[in-house]
C-alpha cells in the first residue's frame, strides 16, 4: 500500500444527525485505513444504521435535513447525494435483507442490470436494451468475483435453491463485481457488511470470515456490523462500540474479550427509569401457560424449538436482538403465523394456528403491527375498543327473542370507551373519532384498551412502546404495570428495549437464534443480558 503514511481511506469527523430535533448521532469521529477491518457493534437503535446511511448518502438522510460534520475519502471531502455516488467512489454495501432474484442464477444476480452485452442489429433501431446478453463474459466476470472472494459458489445455481450462506456470498460477489462492469475509478475500496452472519450457520460464517480476510489482504477495507461479538474479535483489526448515538469506545481488537464489549454496549451506569421493585413469588404461583417445542414460521422472526413457562400473575419480558425470533413467539402462539408444537393454557391444551381458540380461552394480544393488525383505522374509538369483546365474548350486546337477535348496546359501548379514555389518558376529540386520526402513542393506548376490554387472563404485549414518544411510553408502561397489579392478569411483554423490560418485568427471557437463550430475574446485571443477547453464555463477571 503506497499511502500508509498518507490520508486514511475513510475519515469521518464530527458527524451528527437529528431527526426533527431528536438527536440520534452526535460527534462521531473515526478513520479507516486501506485493508482495515472495523467491527461496529451496538444495541438496536444505537445509531449504526443511521451512520451507514449517512456514509451512503441515502435519500432518507437528505429528506430529514441532512447531517452535520464531514466525510473524507483519501483526504478529499465527499458529500454523497445518492448511493450511486458512493458506489462510484468504490464503496459497496451488503444489506441484512437479501436483495436477490429467487428464480435467477447466482451469475445473473451478481451482474443484475450490469450485464455485458453483445451488439445486435435490432439495437440500432430500438435502443441498446435490445442487445443480447453476453453469457460467456457474464460467467467470466461473476466467476472472477467469486474467486476473489475465495468461496465455493456455483454461478449456475438458482438463488431459491441456495443455502442462506451462498445467498450472502452472492450479494458480496455482486459488490466485488462492480469494479469490472462500472466506471469505478479503481474498484471496490470499502465494503460495508450489515450483520452478514446473523442468518448463517457456524460453518458458513467461518468461510465468510475467511473471505473477509482475503479481501482485506487485497487492500479492501471492511466495516463489519455484527452482534456476534466473538466473530468481531476474531476478524477485526479495530472495534468500535456505539451506544445512544455516540462512540463509546474504539479499541484495537487484540486483548479485548466479549464481556468487555457487552459491557460497553449496554452498560448504562445511571438509570432514570423506574425500577420494578417487587419480588414475585415463583414458588407459590402456578404455571398458567406452558409452551413446548414451539416453532413459528414468521418471516424474519423465525422461532425454533421454544420451551417457556409463564407463571400466573407475573410479568414476563421477552427480549433479544431484532430478527432473532422474539416477535415470532406471540405471533405464533396467537395463530397469526404458521406454527407447530404444543401450548397448554390453564391445564388445557389449545390448538395452534387458530386465533379464535386462544381468544376464547382468555388470551389477548397487542400486536407490534399496530396499524395493520391492531386497529380498524377507519372506525371509531368505540368500535376499536369494544370490537373484539363484542365478537368473542358477546359483550356490549342487547339480546332479543331469546338471543336470536342481538343488537349493539350503544350506551354500554360509550361507557366502556369513556372509562378507558380517562384511565389511559387517550387524547381524542370524541369517542367517535376515527383511530387513524390519533397519534402513535394514543393509538397504542387504544390497542391496550381493546385488550383490556376482553378482561384477558393472559396478555401478550408486543413492542408496546415502539415509535411513540417518551411521555406516552411511561404512560403505557404504567398502565401495564397497574393492570397487572389490579386485576392479576399475567402479562408477557416483548420488547427490543432491555431497559424498558427491566423497568416493568419480573423475569426476562432472552431469545437468540430463535430459541430462548436464558431467563434471568429483571434485577440482574444488564451486562449479563447483553451477553445473552449476543449468544454468549453468562460467566461470572
Amino acid at each position, binding site marked *: 500500500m503506497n499511502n500508509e503514511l498518507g490520508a486514511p481511506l475513510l475519515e469521518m469527523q464530527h458527524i451528527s444527525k437529528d431527526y426533527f430535533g431528536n438527536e440520534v448521532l452526535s460527534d462521531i469521529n473515526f478513520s479507516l485505513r486501506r485493508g482495515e477491518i472495523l467491527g461496529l457493534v451496538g444495541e438496536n437503535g444505537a445509531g449504526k444504521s443511521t451512520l451507514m446511511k449517512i456514509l451512503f448518502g441515502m435519500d432518507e438522510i437528505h429528506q430529514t435535513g441532512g447531517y452535520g460534520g464531514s466525510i473524507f475519502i483519501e483526504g478529499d471531502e465527499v458529500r454523497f447525494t445518492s448511493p450511486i455516488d458512493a458506489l462510484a467512489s468504490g464503496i459497496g454495501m451488503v444489506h441484512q435483507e437479501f436483495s436477490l432474484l429467487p428464480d*435467477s442464477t447466482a451469475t445473473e444476480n451478481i451482474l*443484475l*442490470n450490469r450485464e455485458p452485452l453483445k451488439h445486435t442489429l435490432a439495437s440500432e433501431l430500438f435502443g441498446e*436494451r*435490445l442487445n*443480447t*446478453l453476453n453469457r460467456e463474459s457474464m460467467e467470466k466476470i461473476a466467476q472472477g468475483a467469486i474467486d476473489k472472494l475465495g468461496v465455493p459458489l456455483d454461478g449456475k445455481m438458482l438463488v431459491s435453491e441456495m443455502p442462506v450462506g451462498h445467498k450472502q456470498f452472492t450479494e458480496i460477489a455482486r459488490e466485488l463485481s462492480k469494479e469490472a462492469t462500472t466506471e469505478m475509478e479503481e474498484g471496490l475500496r470499502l465494503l460495508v457488511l450489515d450483520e452478514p452472519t446473523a442468518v448463517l450457520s457456524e460453518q458458513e460464517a467461518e468461510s465468510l470470515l475467511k473471505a473477509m480476510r482475503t479481501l482485506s489482504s487485497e487492500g479492501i477495507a471492511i466495516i463489519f456490523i455484527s452482534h456476534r461479538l466473538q466473530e468481531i474479535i476474531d476478524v477485526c483489526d479495530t472495534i468500535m462500540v456505539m451506544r445512544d448515538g455516540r462512540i463509546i469506545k474504539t479499541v484495537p481488537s487484540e486483548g479485548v474479550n466479549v464481556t468487555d464489549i457487552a459491557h460497553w454496549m449496554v452498560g448504562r451506569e445511571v438509570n432514570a427509569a423506574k425500577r420494578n421493585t417487587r419480588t414475585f413469588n415463583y414458588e407459590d404461583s402456578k404455571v398458567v401457560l406452558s409452551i413446548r417445542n414451539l*416453532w413459528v*414460521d414468521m418471516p424474519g422472526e423465525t422461532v*425454533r424449538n421454544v420451551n417457556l413457562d409463564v407463571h400466573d400473575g407475573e410479568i414476563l419480558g421477552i427480549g433479544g436482538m431484532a430478527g432473532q425470533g422474539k416477535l415470532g413467539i406471540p405471533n405464533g402462539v396467537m395463530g397469526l403465523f404458521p406454527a407447530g408444537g404444543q401450548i397448554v393454557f390453564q391445564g388445557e391444551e389449545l390448538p395452534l394456528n387458530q386465533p379464535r381458540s386462544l381468544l376464547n380461552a382468555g388470551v389477548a394480544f397487542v400486536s407490534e403491527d399496530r396499524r395493520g393488525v391492531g386497529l380498524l383505522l377507519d372506525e371509531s374509538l368505540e368500535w376499536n375498543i369494544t370490537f373484539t369483546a363484542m365478537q368473542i365474548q358477546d359483550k356490549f350486546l342487547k339480546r332479543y327473542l331469546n338471543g336470536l337477535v342481538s343488537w349493539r348496546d350503544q350506551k354500554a359501548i360509550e361507557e366502556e370507551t369513556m372509562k378507558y379514555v380517562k384511565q389511559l389518558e387517550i387524547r381524542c376529540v370524541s369517542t367517535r373519532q376515527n383511530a387513524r386520526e390519533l397519534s402513535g402513542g394514543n393509538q397504542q393506548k387504544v390497542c391496550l384498551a381493546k385488550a383490556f376490554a376482553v378482561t384477558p387472563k393472559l396478555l401478550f404485549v408486543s413492542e408496546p412502546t415502539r415509535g411513540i414518544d417518551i411521555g406516552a411510553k411511561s404512560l403505557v408502561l404504567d398502565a401495564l404495570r397497574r393492570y397487572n397489579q389490579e386485576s392479576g392478569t399475567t402479562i408477557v411483554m416483548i420488547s427490543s428495549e432491555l431497559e424498558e423490560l427491566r423497568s416493568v418485568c419480573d423475569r426476562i427471557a432472552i431469545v437468540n437464534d430463535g430459541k430462548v437463550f436464558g431467563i434471568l430475574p429483571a434485577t440482574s446485571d444488564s451486562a449479563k443480558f447483553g451477553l445473552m443477547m449476543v449468544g454468549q453464555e453468562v460467566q461470572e463477571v
Partner: protein
Amino acid sequence: MRELSTKQKILRFMANNTVPLLFVVIIAFGVPLSGYSPTYLAGEVISRISRNTFLIVSLLIPILAGMGLNFGMTLGAMAGQIGLIFTTDWGIVGIPGILLAMIVSTPLSILLGWWCGKILNMAKGREMVTSYIIGFFMNGIYQLVVLYGMGPLIKIISPNLLLPRGYGIRNTVNLIGIRKSLDNFLMIRIGGVPIPVGTFLVIALLSVFILWFKKTKLGQDMRAVGQDMEVARAAGIRVEYTRIMSIIISTVLAGYGMIIYLHNIGTLNTYNSHMQIGMFSVAALLVGGATVASAKIRNVFLGVVLFHLMFIVSPMAGKRLIGQAQLGEYFRVFVSYGVITTSLVLYEVRKKRERGMSGLALAQDQEVTS
C-alpha cells in the same frame, strides 16, 4: 435436498400439470366417441394451430414481466380489426393487404398498449382483473368509433362496408380479398392434410423472436421485474418503463395475431370477434400447462392442440352421446371459464403449499435436534 422417489416424482408431475392431464383424459374419451377420421382431425388441428398460435404467443411477454395473463390483448385485437376494415375499404388484397393491415394496426396498438401499461402500473398486483376490465371499457370506445365515427368522421368509401343508413360499419365484413391468402401461400399437402407453410413460417419466426427476446437485455430486465420489482428497482432497472414495454409488445403482437386469425376465418364479426378472443387465448395457454407466473412456447403449442382438439370433437361426441350438437358450443364457453378459474385457484394453492413447506422444514429441523 432429499432425492424424490419415483412415486413422489409422478405425483409432483401430476400436481404441476393438472390441467393438461385433465384435457388429455377428456380427449382420450372424446376422440373415439366422435368417430372422426384421423386425417380430418389432423387437418382441423393444423388449421387451428395456424389460426390461433400467434394470438396466444402475444400473451407470453407480460407473463415474463410478472404481469400475469394479459386480458388486455383485446385492445390489440381491436387495433387489428380496424387495420382490416381500412385495408378492405381501400381494396388491397392478398398478402399485401395483410401486411398493410398490420402496419395500420401497429401505431394504434402501441398507443393502446402504452395507455393500458400506464394504468396497469397504477394497479400493481391486480393487473389481470384490471386488464380484463380495460378490455370492456375499450370495447365501448371501439364501438363508438366504428359504429358512429366511421363514415362521417373517418372516410369509408366502400358502400359494402357501411350500414345501409350511411355511417357505421356493418355487423359482418367480408374479408374475401385476403381470405386464406397467407395460408395458401406455400400450401403443401401431406397425406391429404393441407399444411399452410406460409403461416407456419410466420409463427416459427415469431417463436424465434420470443426466444431471442428473452436473451436480450430488455428480456432479462423483464424477468428481473417479474421476479421482484423492488430488487430490480434497487439494481437500477426502470421498472415502470419495462412493464409498459411488455404490454406494448403484447398488444402489438395481439393485433397481428388477430389479423392472421381473421384472415383464416374469412369474415370479420365487427362487434364480436375481439370480445372472446382474449379469454379463449388465455384458456388455451393455461390448458398447455402455463401458469400466471410462467409460460413457455411449448405451452402455447400443447395448449392449442389440446384445447382445440376438444372443441373439434365435443359437438360430435355430444351428438353421439345425447343427440345434441349444441353441447360443443356450450362446452367451449363453459370449459374456457372453468380452465381459467381452475388455473388461478391451483396457482394460489401451489404457492400456499410451498409456503407451508418452510414451516414443515422448521418442524423437521427441530425433531432432528431434540
